[in-house]
């Protein structure tokens, strides 16, 4: 990169960013990793993290089990009824959320600092001693079935589901986290209890604490409440099967009666988060469908042709090859026109790469927005958990500006060619029936 252009990148005070000087990390004897960072400018404390259990660990016939288990944790323990748990949390304006994803079950809590011990102790109890009372599990099932019925009527959800079935056929990534009405209707308290006994445990668990709590106190409290968390029978997480690349373009459209607008999802399976091509792909994706008013895709689909209210691209890299997608909401009569324009932009991106100016602008954007992403306690907490999940090192955010500045146009082109073959895209849509 030319020296003059490099000088134009934002200069951050890297020592104001989370790093080894301000993050305390330790591991409890039972395997739980704790990260803590103090922020005494705030009146609150937050914690968040994950357990190594997710919908990957459920069978296709019990799709929705991981989510239903996570949602039922707060519905009663060996010592507290659901009402007591929620009264204890809500009466002080705190919040606690636990929900399952593909690879992990995420949790987050927030409260005024003086309530931190109370919230952490409730969290530890619901995690270790849930009783899954049948009447409460019935309610959770009812809520999940309603959420499924609503999801199945949403054009966006149906287009994404259709896309996942095209790109990940027979793979856990094509399975819906909420499950289906058929599978969820059969899930009982006993299934949840067995799933919890088999997969919930301290192995692989990460918890981050940020706010006006001394780091040493935060760690001591986590140890006090979760140090005794054991599960000698905790199963290893299921392995993610490989995926087969698409052999050509595949298309499907889901007609939904009574809908007005169509949702469109076009893309492929992208890189894993730990793939060396991830950062170039992320910068490339920003140019393709995020930068400014949604990058090149937004300019063409929305600004120039007025075809959609939203049109952008997204790269959902995680432990596995999450999707790299372009998403748009369009009038069904304009669907083909939008597909043609999007395919043309993907093709241009892959064949001609990005310009020097585009790269510099996007590097600048990635670096400049770092302090914004880390402004809130929640933002920092999520960032600390992210470091541990992907083993990035405590100095990752301090190294990040340099890493971004070092990405070249050739690396972006390489990542684009490797993942985004314009002749082998999945094109999924959902909306009113097409003529």
């Amino acid at each position, binding site marked *: 990169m030319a020296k003059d252009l490099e000088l134009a990148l934002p200069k951050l005070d890297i020592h104001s960013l989370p790093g080894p000087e301000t993050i305390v990390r330790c591991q409890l004897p039972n395997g739980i990793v704790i990260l803590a960072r103090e922020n005494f*400018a705030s009146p609150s404390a937050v914690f968040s993290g994950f357990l190594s259990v997710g919908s990957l660990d459920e069978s296709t016939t019990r799709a929705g089990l991981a989510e239903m288990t996570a949602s039922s944790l707060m519905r009663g323990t060996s010592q507290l009824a659901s*009402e007591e748990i929620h009264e204890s949390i809500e*009466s002080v304006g705190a919040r606690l959320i636990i929900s399952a994803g593909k690879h992990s079950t995420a949790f987050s809590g927030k409260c005024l600092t003086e309530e931190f011990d109370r919230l952490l102790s409730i969290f530890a109890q619901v995690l270790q001693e849930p009783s899954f009372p049948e009447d409460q599990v019935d309610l959770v099932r009812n*809520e999940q079935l309603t959420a499924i019925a609503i999801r199945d009527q949403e054009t966006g959800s149906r287009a994404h589901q259709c896309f996942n079935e095209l790109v990940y056929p027979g793979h856990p990534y094509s399975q819906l986290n909420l499950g289906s009405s058929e599978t969820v209707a059969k899930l009982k308290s006993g299934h949840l209890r067995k799933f919890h006994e088999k997969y919930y445990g301290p192995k692989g668990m990460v918890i981050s604490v940020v706010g006006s709590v001394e780091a040493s106190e935060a760690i001591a409290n986590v140890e006090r409440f979760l140090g005794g968390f054991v599960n000698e029978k905790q199963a290893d997480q299921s392995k993610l099967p490989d995926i087969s690349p698409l052999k050509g373009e595949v298309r499907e459209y889901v007609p939904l009666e009574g809908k*007005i607008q169509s949702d469109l999802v076009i893309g492929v399976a992208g890189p894993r988060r730990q793939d060396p091509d991830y950062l170039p792909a992320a910068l490339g994706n920003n140019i393709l469908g995020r930068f400014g008013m949604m990058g090149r895709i937004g300019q063409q689909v929305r600004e120039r042709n*007025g075809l959609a209210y939203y049109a952008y691209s997204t790269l959902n890299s995680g432990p596995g090859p999450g999707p790299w997608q372009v998403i748009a909401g369009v009038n069904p009569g304009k669907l083909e026109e939008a597909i043609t324009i999007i395919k043309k932009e993907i093709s241009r991106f892959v064949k001609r790469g990005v310009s020097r100016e585009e790269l510099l602008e996007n590097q600048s954007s990635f670096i400049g927005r770092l302090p914004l992403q880390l402004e809130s306690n929640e933002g920092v907490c999520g960032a600390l958990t992210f470091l541990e999940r992907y083993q990035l090192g405590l100095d990752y955010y301090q190294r990040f500006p340099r890493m971004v500045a070092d990405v070249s146009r050739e690396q972006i082109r390489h990542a684009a060619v490797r993942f985004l073959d314009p002749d082998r895209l999945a094109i999924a849509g959902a909306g009113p029936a097409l003529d």
Partner: protein
Amino acid sequence: MSASSLSLVQTRLRNGLKVRLKPIHSAPLVSVWLWYKVGSRDEYPGITGISHWVEHMQFKGTPKFPPGVLDRAIARVGAYWNAFTWLDWTAYFETLPADQIDLALQLEADRMFNNSFKAKEVESERTVIISERQGHENDPSFRLAEELQAAAFRIHSYHHEVIGDMHDLQSISRDQLHNHYRKYYVPSNAVLSIAGDFSVRPTLDRIRKAFGSNLGTKRPVRNIRDEPAQFGERRITVQGPGETTFLEVVYHAPQGDHEDFLPLSVVNSVLAGASNLNLFGGGISNQTSRLYRKLVESGIATSVDGTLAATIDPYLYSIRMTVSPSRSYEEALAVLDEELDEVLSRPVRKEELTKAIQQARALFAYGSESITNQAFWMGYSEMFADYDWFQNYLDKLAEVEVEQALQTAQKYLVPHNRIVGVYIPNGRPNG
């Protein structure tokens, strides 16, 4: 940091622009908000949706910042920006690195005065906005809310949704858009609120330089028609795709600066759980609220929530619920009415009042943590009251007594003051 411990600077430029500044040095960031007192309240049949459309046009560039230049300049420095149009106001904001404050001031000043509304850009945006409305129409909640609003307001311009009616979106002209912009996008109809890492004096100098024009000092003249009292319950039904029944019951409610507003918000907390007044940052769960216990714990509904919005004119208090697949909306409405009878016949318990205030205190503290939210509140409170409303919010809430909450509930939550709306799905009408 707490809101009250931070110093606020308030001033007004000679052209009428109100300026609210709050230096906060906790992070090298600044959040710049420009608020205009214009929204769907200022529209009438023929031009419904025009305020929201003008907001879209403000991203289309000016001679100084042609299309594409503005958004690239913002994105390049890693800033976050957005805009919102609502019933009473339209707001634009940028949260960005503190050393880039000039960029936000320059662009906001430029688009306040210099947007040219090119015909080609207007036509391109017409289809985008129609697409936005069609996206809303896919959602049963939108269809129900739109009908409820129309049934609740026969006279007042809160009658229509912010997005506007399809007929008007197809027919509004470039000149109508430009006239609306010229009438309302004037300094005397705007509030500039800035929070973050800056020094007051040099920032005020920059603001005067950017916004100091004497153009448009005339305040817009409005012709808002008061909604007459409602004399009897109204009911509406919407049918559409899906398998899920939604029930929404709305009551005419006091405006944000009315003395009944906070007592009614306490009643809402007790009935449906604490509401987060902030634009950013989530709320808390409501599983210990009266309605959740009666409706969701019994399996009749799968969710319930209540909303009371702070507005310039009297608007609506809304209770929404998703009815369980095997239950009926009549059953849900009967249980709701039982609970409302309870809240109308005896005061809420002292511990319920204490909890509502404690929840509000926590949510208020969470909302004061972010620079963006601090700047939001300085402008937002000016839209329907003034900044004192925000600063005194917790103290005033703590003064609410159980008898006062009872009297407020008895005044507003009565059948003749409400509209009952139900969405009945074609898939499986469980009504």
